[in-house]
């Protein structure tokens, strides 16, 4: 049945083109075996017609020629699958899912297609269990929820790696259910991979799986590695009842790989050269986070997105923000002023916190306090701007209270360094820094909470 082709017509790295023989019923999306002088490569059918088949070669097309008898191409009957197993926990793999930690190959419990199928919306369980990261700007203002997809928007040179390592090492849920972290490196620097490895080892890597596609690895692999990682996550979460936290670093590399292939295929671009289907494509990755009714496990995603030029309206962060359930935005200004973690509260948002926080979960006053902090911090910024123009002498008494609040917010609430705080700690600090405003200004907080928690100025 296996037909061997030697009639390549075009090679446009990383794509190969050939004409199928009559009556060969090639499958859309099927795997392709490419035998070259120096070994076997893997490809995938991108589109197929009676005139032309387009194949994407994962390892790239370097050294593949037209008219040479050495290159032999055969089509396999299946689409992309990987073997998954619980043995993978504690191990390290490359972008194709092959172990790179020197250990034995994995004996698969199961073969799974890496593309996955959409979760039926009626079967989704709405995420509502909080994860404590120990970071006030997360827990207090942008609470992370099990089953949520909450990206970190960052810029070149900002300490996102340090932040991620801190989250991965400190993340806690309130139960003792099995918890696994998957780190998926997409086009990352070898040095960053090393950094994460060391950081994670501080806490132990027995509950960690790493898939690493380095910046020097094939571009096409970047399109595959998140799918492999997510397929593994689904297996662990839905088959073995585990809670999986998956970090995708960095989705900007993924999107750029997508653009590269799209441009070579000659597709009409939408914005900044990115293909029109990038929204759907990214959604097929991000929407794999979640919970399913009647199943115990969950998949929580933290994708990292580097904003080119710190531009949040660039298509990659923009489309990501349209799909994910909020975003946590790092600020260069904070970073330069030495605030760590440099999370800019106003641009950040957790869409799923509203139903998950409060009595019985974090604390009854959480929602009101968060809302008040946002409103007050925003007002602080406006007054600060005004002050810089008209001078501090012309500022009213009330406005001065806000200036006091703002500096406390940045100094104590935000700038917590590498310390770890409980939800209680975070909320108590919040009441402390709200204190200079006086109870009358706290109009977003219910009166009963003010009575109970308001800290009078000493």
């Amino acid at each position, binding site marked *: 049945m296996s037909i061997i082709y030697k009639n390549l017509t075009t090679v446009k790295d990383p794509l190969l083109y050939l004409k*199928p023989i009559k*009556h060969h*019923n090639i*499958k*859309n*999306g*099927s795997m392709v075996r490419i035998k070259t002088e120096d070994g076997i490569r893997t490809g995938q059918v991108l*589109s197929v*017609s*009676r005139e032309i088949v387009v194949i994407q070669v994962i390892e790239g097309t370097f050294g593949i020629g037209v008219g040479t008898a050495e290159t032999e191409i055969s089509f396999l009957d299946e*689409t992309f699958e990987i073997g998954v197993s619980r043995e993978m926990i504690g191990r390290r793999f490359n972008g194709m899912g092959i172990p790179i930690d020197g250990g034995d190959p994995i004996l698969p419990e199961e073969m799974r297609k890496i593309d996955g*199928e*959409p*979760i*039926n*919306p*009626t*079967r*989704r369980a*709405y995420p509502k269990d909080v994860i404590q990261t120990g970071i006030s700007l997360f827990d207090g203002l942008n609470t992370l929820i099990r089953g949520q997809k909450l990206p970190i928007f960052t810029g070149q040179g900002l300490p996102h790696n340090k932040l991620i390592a801190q989250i991965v090492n400190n993340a806690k849920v309130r139960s003792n259910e099995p918890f696994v972290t998957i780190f998926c490196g997409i086009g990352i620097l070898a040095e960053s991979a090393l950094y994460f490895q060391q950081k994670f080892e501080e806490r132990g890597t027995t509950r960690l799986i790493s898939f690493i596609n380095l910046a020097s690895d094939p571009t096409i692999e970047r399109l595959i590695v998140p799918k492999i990682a997510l397929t593994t996550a689904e297996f662990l979460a839905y088959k073995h009842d585990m809670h999986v936290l998956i970090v995708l670093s960095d989705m900007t590399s993924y999107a750029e790989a997508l653009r590269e292939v799209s441009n070579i295929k000659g597709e*009409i*671009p*939408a*914005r900044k050269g990115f*293909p*029109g*289907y990038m929204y*759907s494509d990214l*959604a097929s990755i991000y*929407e*794999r986070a*979640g919970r*399913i*009714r009647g*199943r115990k496990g969950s998949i929580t995603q933290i994708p990292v997105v580097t904003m080119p030029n710190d531009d949040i*309206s660039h*298509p990659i962060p*923009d489309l990501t923000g*349209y*799909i994910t*359930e909020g*975003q946590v935005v790092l600020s260069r200004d904070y970073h330069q002023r030495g605030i760590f973690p440099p999370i800019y509260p*106003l*641009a950040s948002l957790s*869409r*799923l916190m*509203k139903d998950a926080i409060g009595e019985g979960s974090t604390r009854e006053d959480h*929602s009101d306090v968060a*809302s008040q902090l946002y409103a007050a911090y*925003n007002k602080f910024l406006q007054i600060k*701007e*005004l002050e810089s*123009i*008209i001078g501090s002498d*012309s500022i*009213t008494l009330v406005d001065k209270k806000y200036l006091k609040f703002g500096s406390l917010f940045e100094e104590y609430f935000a700038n917590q360094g590498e310390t770890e705080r409980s939800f209680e700690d975070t909320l108590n600090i919040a009441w402390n820094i709200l204190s200079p405003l006086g109870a*009358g200004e706290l*109009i*977003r907080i*219910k009166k009963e909470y003010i009575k109970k928690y308001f800290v009078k100025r000493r």
Partner: protein
Amino acid sequence: MNENENQKIMGKISSINGSVIKVIGFSHQSIGDMVNVSEELNIIGEIIKILDNIAVIQCYEETLGLKLNAIVTNLQYPLSMELGPGLLNSIYDGIQRPLDYIAEITGDFISRGMKVNALDREKKWKFIPSVKNGEVVREGDIIGYVQEYALRHEIMVPQGISGTITGISEGNFNIIEKICSIKNKNKIYNQKILSKWPIRIPRPYHKRMMPDQPLITGTRVFDLLFPVARGGVVAVPGGFGTGKTDLQHSLAKLADAAVIVYIGCGERGNEMADLLNSFPKLVDPKNNHPLMERTIMIANTSNMPVSAREASIFSGITMAEYFRDMGKNVLLLADSTSRWAEALRELSGRLEEMPTEGGYPAYLATRLANFYERAGLIEIIGNPKRIGSITIIGAVSPGGGDFSEPVTTNTKRFVKAFWALDPNLAYARHYPSVNWSNSYSLYDNLAEFWEENIHKGWEEYRKAINYILSREGELSSIAKLIGPENLPPEQQLIIYTADLIKEGFLIQNGFNDNDRYSSPKKTMKLIGLFLKFYNESLSLIKKNIPFFRFKELEVINSIRRARLDVNNDNLDELELLDLMLSRDLLQIHRQYAELL
């Protein structure tokens, strides 16, 4: 519409490119024909182009694993909606497959090739006729009804049918049983409860009318400043996180309509889960039925097939028209129309059509019009005479939050109200983040209805707020240069009042039980307080009483937070605040009267 294939028309796949395939060998083919793709996978598709005898087909399901030369069967009927009782309280994908039923068959993940009926064929409904044997009926006439939850679900004579009723009687029927016959000369039509309608063709109507009644939303900024009429069309553009979805959810819950069609078009799965979770628990205050019982949901989330996303808004509007034709007020919410436009763009790209700006096809505007023009306040065909409406409120998700992109600008041409959501307001947690200078509503003919049926003073209050907010816009930039304290007291009062209105009126917290829904009465009384403060303070300022005195009023803090503290059923508390305000202002006046 011919459901049973009497003659098999088959062809073979000659090309597969994403969701678009080409098929050679059909002996008959028309644009709009549904097809079954591959005898192995049974994917549903629709013919969208015919080029040199080659059918170009968009597949409503993923084409991964589909084989070249696989067999495709032309089913020879257009993509149609099943219409009848059972639509309410349902959740469908973009081509009306019931998602809950699919889950029963295929489990938690959606697999391909599911052929299921949209409506239950077994369930019996009690049909109560409203016409008698021997009566002559024409198309659109109501011949009886079945009770579907709180809704009187009218059964209508289909288009093109007229004649004499025979064999009609009260009884229990499933939707495909004959409920009566309509005899015309020697032709007999067997009327069933179920009917069908192709999604791309608007259902005909008798006459379009000028929308002149407000659709009460319960959201203050809309009901007072940017109102929408029943049968109106609104676009809600905004970048991510500005509150589009939240707004749509809140309208689905609280807006005053008989039927809600909610289309989750290329958005998040969890948002649909959120609705599905909360709706059965919430009740419609008008009839104490769970909200879900007046709702049809269409969920074609971002990770579901893109062609079905394109179809979803036409599926939704077809169902909406069906209820409109019964004489109901229908509200259709589409989140987000941009995702629909992107689906169009993606398909167009695969068809290798010439793109225009942003890669969108040249027919983007035409398609948008095809959708929005199906809204309206309508006089229905048939007896008894009746009026129905479809209001469309569509979210728009402009790339980069830039309102000059093609979907936003083209949409603007077809809508009469524009609720512009503003990221800066959202950053400040000012929700709903409606920007009061970029938003507009051309439904300014609603005053009469308000004055007569709801509350006096609507027009006057609108004018007053608009004045204060627009003056504040001008003054605050001056204040930034010279400091607010250096403005004349009248101007300081404007800035101060505008801030009060923003915090105490325009902001509406969706998570607060008292604030979530603002009854028209509460809305009017609340704004009345702020305007009273403004007007009376202004007259006192003119008597040279210094401005700072008004800022120190104790009662102001209570008025600022009244939206959160005062329940719709407890508006006396607002009267009390009104009295306190009068008293405090009078006191200031007295103090100074002695001095002056």
